[in-house]
């Protein structure tokens, strides 16, 4: 289980998250909802060790990972696809995928199966394998960002706006891919502006407002409770 307990965190002197508690259990998909600037990305970056934590702790299983370096957290099996993809543009598709792999497994025997797993989910990446990441289309880049997270994250995926800026058909295809990953037993923590997309995958959701968890509900509750959904849709669209 991945768990934040009363976490207060931010960047430099700025505090963004205040006393945030949330958890993501094994094989579960959880959505973080909320307007821009409410702390969704900061929550994810805090899990990856990319913010300064002033209070509370981050637990992975029984282990306190609050003070671990980002590379140590990544090597625990948490795959990360950040906002804006942040691919290594001049590196090829395969090189981008290889980086999380070599960092986790110095012995290369599992590499072909890892690559096959990504190419199976996103066949277009196999066609583009020798191309540089920077030369891919927006949709392909997003697939590569998720694929790269899959290689490093054999237990948990932490995805920040994986459908941002994509055409509706591509959004559907990315969401379907994420459903497949979840069905394979991966836990997914997802930041998503589009509440409908988020609820298509998520079992539960947290609504963040001004750096605090304002509300938590199951996906079914949200789908059935019109008022609750309106509230999330309202903030989601803003």
């Amino acid at each position: 289980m991945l768990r934040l307990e009363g976490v207060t965190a931010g960047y430099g002197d700025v505090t963004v998250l205040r006393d945030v508690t949330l958890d993501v259990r094994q094989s579960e998909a959880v959505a973080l909802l909320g307007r821009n600037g409410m702390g969704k990305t900061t929550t994810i970056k805090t899990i990856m060790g990319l913010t300064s934590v002033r209070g509370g702790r981050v637990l992975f299983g029984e282990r306190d990972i609050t003070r671990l370096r980002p590379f140590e957290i990544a090597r625990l099996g948490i795959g990360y696809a950040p906002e804006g993809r942040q691919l290594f543009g001049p590196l090829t598709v395969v090189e981008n995928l290889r980086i999380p792999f070599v960092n986790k497994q110095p012995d290369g025997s599992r590499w072909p199966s890892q690559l096959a797993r990504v190419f199976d989910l996103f066949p277009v990446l196999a066609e583009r394998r020798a191309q540089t990441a920077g030369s891919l289309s927006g949709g392909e880049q997003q697939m590569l960002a998720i694929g790269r997270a899959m290689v490093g994250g054999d237990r948990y995926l932490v995805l920040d706006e994986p459908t941002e800026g994509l055409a509706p058909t591509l959004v559907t295809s990315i969401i379907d891919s994420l459903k497949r990953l979840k069905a394979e037993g991966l836990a997914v923590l997802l930041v998503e502006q589009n509440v409908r997309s988020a609820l298509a995958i998520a079992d539960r959701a947290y609504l963040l407002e001004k750096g605090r968890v304002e509300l938590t509900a199951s996906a079914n509750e949200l789908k059935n409770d019109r008022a609750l959904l309106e509230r999330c849709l309202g903030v989601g669209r803003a």
Partner: protein
Amino acid sequence: MSVLLQLLNGLTTGAIYILLASGLTIVFGLQRIVNAAHGVFYMLGAYLAIDLGKRLGFPLTLLVVFAACAVIGLVFERIAIRPLIRWKRDPTHVLVLTLGSAIIASELTKMVWGPVPRLAEIPASLSGSLHVAGVTYPAYWLFVMLFTTVLMAAIGVVFHTTTLGALVRSIALNREMSEALGTNAPAVSSNVFALGTGVAGLAGALAAPILLVTPTMCFDLLMVLFVIVILGGLGSLRGVVVSGVLVGVVNAFGVAYLTGTTGTIFVFAVMIVALIVRPHGLFGQEGVD
């Protein structure tokens, strides 16, 4: 003096420049720091080559110089530079720290090896001369060019075809993202720093029979190296190869035909003009390449 001879002279000093600038530019690309102590390893390599050359023979001397400078570089990075980076100090702190270290190293060198300039002997196996298109040219100088060409090609191949190279490039492109994918960026950066100081030591060993070996040589080339690194585009290995050749040749022709003393004035003129035309340098872009 023939044009060809000047060209060969320029290419030879250019080769030394390239070896030195390559370490500076990669370290800048990875850690965003300017290591003003880089020349110390060049100086150390030169003195070690003078002392060890006769006893160990040329090939083994190069190997020992590389290893010694790499190890000392690694220790220096760990105890002096890395803490400043970890504490997120301003890059100026690193500049001043490395400059201060270079001054200390220069004084220590004076104490250990004395203030009198020295020159290493050219290894016997390379002491002959070659006749190239009517010009007689020392074989050793050609060896320096060949050595640099092979070494830079090897580093280029490693950078662009191996996983280690991909890791290094990913750190230079986006350190935070690379770390979030499991890259131990400080460790990789330390090793690259050590590689750079090792190569700087090699440059010193190779230059020892050609250029004067003095306790202030760690500062001699610093300004020219900065020009090469900036002209090539910060972080670009390809850039330092091209700008190293350019600066070496401009310097040689400047000395021979115009000033008679120093060609540096033209080197800086070229840099200023080049940066007006291409503000990010010849190969300036994100990351290292």
